[in-house]
Each structure stands twice: as C-alpha cells, then as structure tokens.
C-alpha cells in the first residue's frame, strides 16, 4: 500500500501535467463542439416564450415572444452581449448578425414610443426618484435574486453585491413586466455602474414594460384599486391608455426591421435555443440543420469535406514520400561503418537544430517561380523561362516542404529497427543461394516493416495536423484542415466549429489507428530494439 502510494506520488507531477495540459483541453474541445447555451443564456425569456410557438405553421410568434425579446435584448445590449448572440446565430443563418446589431441600436427608440406619452400623462414618470419610490418595497427579495441570476448568466459577469433596491411584492404582482425591467435596470445601475438606483433615470425598456402591463384589462382594474406609492401616476396612465401606442411590440420590432416578422428568422432562433446542438458538427461536414431537417449546403459552400479529403490524401502522399526517401538513408545509417554513420546521422538531425519557421521560409526561397530551383532549371534549359514551374502556393509546395520537414521522423524509427537486424540473416539468405536483391527483399525488408509502420504512424499523424508549413507554402490549394481550424480560432472566432473540426480530425486519426492495428497489428510497430 505504501509502495503504491509512493509510486503514485512519483508519477503525480506528470499525471497532473497530462491531465491539465492534455486531457482537460481535449474534453473542453469535445464539449465546446456541441455546446450552445449562448441563446438560452442571452435571451432566456424569449426562449421560454418561443417554446410555445409552433413553427410549422406560417403563424408568426405571439406578442409575448416579442415582449420578452425586448426585455432580454435591452439588457443584453447594455452588457454588449447581443452582438455575440448575433454572431453565433449568423453561423446558421446569414443576416442575423446585422439584424441583432441594428436592432440593438434602436431599442431606445422603441422604448421612447411609450416613454414620451407616459411622461406627458404624468411628469412624475420623468423622475428617477419617483420610479424608485414606486417600485421599492418589501417582499420582492426572491424576485430580485431571480433577476440577478439571469443577469449574471447573460453577461457572464459577477453580479453579486448590494443593490440598494428591493422590489415591492405588490408591484411585482401588479406590474410584472415593469418590475422585471426595472429590477434589471436597478441591478445594472448599482452593481455594474456603481450608481445609486434612486438617483438614476430608468432605462427606456422600463417605460416599454409599463406599456406592456397597461395592455391588460385586469391590470387596469387592479391599478384602479391600488393604493401604494405612485398610485396616482399609475391611475392617470391607466385612464389615458388611448394616448399610448395602439400597436404592440411585434409591430414595433417589424417596423425597425422587417426580418423580425420573417418566419425563418424565428425558426432558426427556436432551432438553436437548446443548450446542445449538432449544428457545429453538421457545419464541419458541409451540412446544416434547417427547420426542415438536416440538409447539405449548396455546392459553392462545400469546403470541409474537400479539405478533410485533401488533408488525408496529402498526409498519405507525404508519408509515402518519406518512406521512399527515408528507407535508403536509414539503411545506409544502419549499415555504414560507425564513423561515417555518425556523420550522416548528424546530417539527418541537422534540421532539428534550425527553427521550423526558418526551414519553411527557406523552402519558400527555393520554390518560388523566381526561386533557386526554377533558376537552375531554366539555366540548365530543362524549363522555358516563360513557363517556370509553379512549385509553391499549391499542394506541390506543401508536399515537398513537409516531406523534408517530417523525414527525420521516418528515418529515426527505421534506423533503430534496422540496427537490430543482425547481418547474419542476410548472410544466411545468401549462403542459401539468394541474390543480394532476394536476400534484401525476402529477408531484410520484412524485418524492417515494423520500422516502416512506426515511422508511418508518426509522420502521418504529424502531417495530418500540421499547420505552419501548409500555411506558409500551401497557398489556397495546399492548406490543410488545421489551417481552417486555426482560422476559426483566431480570425472568425467560431470556436464551436473549430472544436467540431478538431474533434472530427481526432476521430479520423483514432479510426485510422484502429484500422492500422487491425491490418498491420500494433505489435508490429517498433520504435527500437
């Protein structure tokens, strides 16, 4: 037991290191490729309301959905989260990103449609302190915490702290929309902006919310029998609802951008409101999840399957070139006298001493149309000056440069396996009457196959995930899937798609490894003696 503990202690640093730097990132990548809580987190009320909507008919969503959208979007806009949501939904339907961005800018205008007439009806509505007094009270602590939690999830920020405001339970009952909007405002003003709630003018959304409450006849009658703070202003508003806009929020949104009335916009939002989505994976194989089911993307948008195939084929070509070039070198290394062999070995290892970037850039110099290789070919007269070979910014360039860069990974395992093949086998074969070639092909070569296996796995797996070299010399035709992954991680910021592509790559590699084990047998792979 103690020995086991000690052994565990000895491996613990490595174990922790591996878990932290390898297993956790992989798991997080796997998770990220299906994770989709941004919709439900950013517009939670809308998602709930939308679940009632039957998208299969042409019927647009209920007014309730638009009201929730207004309340949700307003605070998301304050937290600058609405553009993130727009970007996310834009992966699934182009145009949604700009829809969210432009709508975000006009949310205040929508609120003012109600704010102006309300302030005309009773000037008290202009006063922040009046609002504070009207909304404050006791018994609304639970409601406050509920809104606080939603706000924290939406903004991804810590919303804990003293608000200096507790909604009155009575008002929460009486004016549910207004209470929500005002509480959101209070939380944001107190905690994010550090202001005193009582001294701040409420958000425009609060007026809009009051407008929502005033459309309900039960609320009107409840207001008329209400006697708490601000009762007279509310009753004045209730008495003059004909001065308020006669339309609802659906019209207000559609007025701002007619896309809010479009059926497929809402269908997309509804489709992507669950917390998990196959969308990224479908995207990664050039498909898309539409409200009508899974569909292939149009031909001109199909890129990933081509890229995956190209990556696989090119990795295979590179592996094959490495075998062809590396085998004779490894054979020489294993069979030359010690001294010559060590010099050759230094030459093989030399590339490891220079930076990968330098080597790749050197290839650029060599392969350019005005580069060394073309110059020599032209000078020798093999190639016309007019039609110099295009060796770079295409697949050829990637294959040439990567074969060179990965060659040592083929030579070293091959060498270490060949080193263990005793010369007596070949001698035996020759003494039995085999020519040099037969002795090599029938006796030496089969025994070096485990080295080929090990080298191939190494080179292939390195090649399939290679990034820098294809990026530099690959142009557009010679890039790999990893370049696309890098693009999504650092430029388009579509991490979910990047994660899905990465996961597929991982699965493909594991699958190939499995096939390899079935066909060749992993026991037949030797890295050395």
């Amino acid at each position, binding site marked *: 037991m103690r020995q086991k503990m000690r052994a565990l202690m000895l491996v613990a640093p490595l174990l922790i290191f591996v878990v932290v730097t390898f297993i956790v990132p992989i798991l997080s990548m796997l998770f990220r490729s299906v994770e989709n809580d941004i919709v439900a987190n950013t517009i939670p009320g809308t998602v709930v309301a939308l679940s009632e909507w039957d998208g299969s008919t042409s019927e647009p969503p209920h007014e309730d959905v638009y009201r929730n959208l207004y309340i949700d979007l307003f605070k998301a806009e304050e937290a600058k989260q609405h553009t993130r949501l727009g970007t996310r939904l834009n992966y699934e339907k182009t145009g949604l990103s700009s829809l969210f961005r432009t709508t975000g800018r006009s949310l205040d205008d929508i609120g003012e449609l109600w704010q102006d007439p309300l302030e005309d009806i009773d000037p008290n509505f202009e006063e922040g302190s009046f609002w504070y007094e009207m909304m404050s009270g006791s018994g609304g602590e639970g409601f406050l915490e509920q809104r606080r939690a939603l706000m924290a999830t939406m903004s991804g920020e810590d919303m804990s702290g003293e608000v200096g405001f507790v909604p009155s339970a009575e008002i929460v009952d009486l004016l549910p929309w207004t209470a929500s909007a005002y509480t959101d405002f209070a939380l944001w003003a107190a905690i994010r902006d550090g202001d005193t709630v009582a001294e701040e003018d409420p958000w425009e959304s609060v007026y809009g919310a009051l407008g929502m409450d005033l459309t309900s006849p039960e609320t009107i009658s409840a207001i008329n029998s209400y006697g708490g703070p601000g009762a007279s202003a509310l009753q004045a508003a209730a008495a003059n609802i004909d001065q308020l806009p006669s339309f609802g929020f659906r019209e207000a949104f559609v007025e701002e951008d007619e896309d809010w009335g479009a059926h497929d916009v809402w269908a997309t939002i509804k489709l992507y409101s669950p917390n998990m989505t196959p969308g990224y994976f479908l995207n990664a194989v050039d498909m898309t999840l539409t409200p009508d089911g899974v569909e292939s993307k149009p031909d001109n948008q199909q890129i990933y399957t081509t890229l995956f195939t190209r990556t696989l084929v090119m990795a295979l070509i590179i592996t094959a070139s490495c075998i062809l070039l590396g085998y004779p070198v490894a054979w020489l290394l294993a069979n030359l006298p010690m001294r010559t062999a060590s010099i050759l070995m230094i030459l093989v290892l030399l590339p490891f001493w220079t930076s990968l970037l330098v080597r790749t850039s050197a290839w650029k110099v060599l392969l350019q149309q005005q580069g060394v290789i073309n110059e020599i070919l032209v000078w020798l007269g093999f190639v016309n000056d007019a039609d110099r070979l295009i060796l770079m910014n295409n697949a050829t360039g990637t294959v040439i440069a990567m074969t060179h860069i990965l060659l040592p990974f083929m030579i070293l395992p091959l060498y270490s396996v060949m080193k263990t093949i*005793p010369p*007596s*086998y070949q*001698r*035996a*074969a*020759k*003494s*039995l*009457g*085999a*020519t*040099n070639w*037969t*002795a090599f092909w*029938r*006796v030496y070569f*089969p*025994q070096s196959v485990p080295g080929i296996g090990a080298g191939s796995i190494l080179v292939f797996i390195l090649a399939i995930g290679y990034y820098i070299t294809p990026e530099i010399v690959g142009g557009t035709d010679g890039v790999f899937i990893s370049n696309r992954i890098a693009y999504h991680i650092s430029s388009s910021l579509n991490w979910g798609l990047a994660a899905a592509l990465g996961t597929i790559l991982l699965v493909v590699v594991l699958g190939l490894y499995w096939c390899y084990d079935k066909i060749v047998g992993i026991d037949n792979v030797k890295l050395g003696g």
Partner: protein
Amino acid sequence: MADGASNEAFVEFERVQKSYDGESLVVKDLNLTMPKGEFLTMLGPSGSGKTTCLMMLAGFETATHGDIRLGGVSINDIPPHKRGIGMVFQNYALFPHMTIAENLAFPLEVRKMGKAEQEEKVKRALDMVEMGSFGGRRPAQLSGGQQQRVALARALVFEPELVLMDEPLGALDKQLREKMQFEITHLAHQLGITTVYVTHDQTEALTMSDRVAVFDDGRIQQLAPPDKLYEEPENSFVAQFIGENNTLEGVVKEIKGNTCVVQLDGGEVIDAVPVNVSEVGERTRVSIRPERVEYNRDRLHEDAHTLKAEVLEFIYMGDIFRTRLRVAGNDEFIIKTRNAPDQVRLTPGTEIEIGWLAEDCRALDA
C-alpha cells in the same frame, strides 16, 4: 577419416592471409587441404581467426592474400550465393518472419524448384532432424535445440557438398550439446558431406572430428586427427589447449635419436621424446598427460622413470581420482587414476614415488 572420403583435395586454402584494417593480420599464412567427406574442426581460443576463415570460405569476407579453392576451382571471385555452401550460424539465423517450412523452402525457392519437389524435400529434411511436426511454427516458438536442428536442416536441404558450422551448439546445455554432437556427426557421415566445424570446446572437437585444426594467433598450430592431437601435441600451446596437461620446465642436456635428457629446474634429470627441441642447452617444457603417470609400484613399467612427489590434495571424482602433487617444484602436478578395486587412495602429506614411460613425456618448446 570417414568412409568414402577420397584423398583428392576438395577445399584448399593456400597461403591465405586476412587483414580487416590493412595493418594487423588476423589470419596469417593459412594452408589447409580437405578431402571430400571430411569432418574438420577448427578449434582455438577466442579471436584466433576461426570465424574469419569460415567467412572467407563462405564468401562474406575476401582474403587479403592467397587463394581459396573449392573442388579445384578458385572461388575468390564467386559471390556467396553461387558457392553452394550450406552454413549454420551461431545464432541459427532462422528468418523470424517465416515459418519453419518456409525457412527450409527458401533455398529451394531461390533455386526455382517446383512446389511439389520443394515440399517433398522440406519434409524429408525435417524428418531427418526429427522436426517433422513443427513445419507450421515460427522460429520463436521453438526451443534452442529445436531451432538448432532446423538450422541444420535448412543448411542441408539444398544438398550442398560443403557445410560450414560456426559454433552451432554454443547456446545449448551440456546434455543437449552431447546429443546434438552425435546427431551432427552421424548426419554428416551418413550424407557424405564435407564439413568445417568451428568450436571453442575441445571435447566437442575431439569427439566429432576426423581432423582438428588448432588455431592460435591466426595460424594453424597443429592439424591432426583427435587421438594424435591429444597424444602427440606438437607444441606446448596444443599440449596446454587440448586436455589436461602437466608441464615441467628444464634444459635439454643431451639428444640421442628419439630420446633426449632433460634436467629439470629442480635438479632432477628425466628422459623425454624430443618433439621440437633441436639442440643441447635449449630451454624446454616437458609435457606429461595426468593419466599416464603411475604411482602404484606394481603397475610401473620397469623402464619407467621415477621422481619423488608429495601429495597435496586428493579429489574423489567418481570414476576417477584426481590427485594434486608437488613434483620438482611444481605444485600443480595432477595425476588421474581410475577408480579400480585395488586402487590406493592417497592421503595428503604423504611422500610417494611417481613414474612414467619416457615415450609419454614430450619435450616441447619453452
């Protein structure tokens, strides 16, 4: 020499020299002639050039100087695969990726023999070494002794006239070795193959061979049938190397025909056969085999020379007694006596008199 061996030279080394580095000679002036059907063993200490000789014969090394002939034809320029020499390697060198049957079929296949004939021959060769039921296995699934037999069968399956074996029994335990020694000689003689066998082990060399070539320092020190080698070593290296041997050092006093008189360093004077001493006053080592020394007066030949000896140690070894004596200042003088009913067991500390025939006592180089 085996039956059917003719005296015509089959394998010949003529003034062969070999140097790996161009400076020191590993094989110096090797001359050797073997008739067909002979079983010849190369015996010698490590590094004496045995393997090198074998490799030159097989064609994996080229002689720096001299000529190697096979059946009268110089083979210096014939590549190994055309020499038709069977070879058994020390580590057997069975191809690990082929089954036993495939290993055996290999030499037949490269000779483009028909499938049926191949099978037939492989079967016969496997049966010959009693491995008939192992054809489908891989070499790694066999014991050392079994691998050894397969290696032998593979070297014989294409019916070479000459077979080379480099310490083929080195990895086996004593009992298996003895069994295999018998089997190899038996097979070689039965098939009438000429065999060059390399070993470290002198017992192996003595029991198996028609002739033994004792190697040292890149030279053949003596080439002779086992009995002659044992009983009539031609120099003190061979006397020391083969079997157990007592040496007494001294100076030649007189040489007369086929006896000489040697004064030992302790002052005693004895008679001996002069083997490679040529002049009076020369220093010499006198060699006597332990079992040729007698201390039982009744058995001592009347012409025998006697010396005083002190018993130092008596070792009971079952079939023989081994007694260590001090003779003429030499503390390591060993005598061996058969455990016969009337044999006396000597007690350490007693003084005895020992004797031997002058013809068993050989005066060799110092």
